[in-house]
């Protein structure tokens, strides 16, 4: 494969990748119709966001604490790794593939709330957290 061919194939698949990614997140946003929104679902969603964040904190803090005996980690590694646990379309797809049973709408509401919170709240603020803990430089990457 010549370098020119490689360049064109790379450009082609990058383009396809970007388009499919845009459609994936579009579908994720339109999927809100599948979630029965009500006071119960919103409360369940908020609770599940808290539960998932605490579970993530534990699952990060315990290995970090265990491995700290071999030498210290960078400061702020636990909050950064906790907050940067972003979730995508796969969790929602798995929740949607459940067969109909009574708790299906609840599972869907939990999952959807966690995914949307992780993409919109965590995804848009994680850079500031990295800069605050001096793990990334304050550069804008577009």
């Amino acid at each position, binding site marked *: 494969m010549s370098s020119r061919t490689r360049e064109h194939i790379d450009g082609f698949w990058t383009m396809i990748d970007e388009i499919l990614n845009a459609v994936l997140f579009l579908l994720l946003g339109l999927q809100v119709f599948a979630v029965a929104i009500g006071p119960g679902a919103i409360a369940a969603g908020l609770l599940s966001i808290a539960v998932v964040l605490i579970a993530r904190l534990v699952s990060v803090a315990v290995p970090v604490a265990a491995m700290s005996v071999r030498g210290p980690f960078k400061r702020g590694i636990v909050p950064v790794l906790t907050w940067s646990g972003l979730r995508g379309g796969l969790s929602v797809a798995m929740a949607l593939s459940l067969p109909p049973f009574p708790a299906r709408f609840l599972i869907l509401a939990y999952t959807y709330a966690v995914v949307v919170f992780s*993409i919109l709240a965590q995804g848009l603020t994680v850079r500031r957290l990295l800069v605050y803990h001096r793990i990334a430089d304050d550069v804008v990457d577009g």
Partner: protein
Amino acid sequence: MTGFDLAAILLAIAAIFGYLNHRILRLPPASGMLAVALVSSLLLG
């Protein structure tokens, strides 16, 4: 509606929403697409 129609509709909506995000919201592409789709769904629904 055929699968072809569906793909065409989704691509067109993705293009419109992506443009809106690029011009108005200026969020990163994936988050912006999700935000525009979510807000417009809630407004319509």
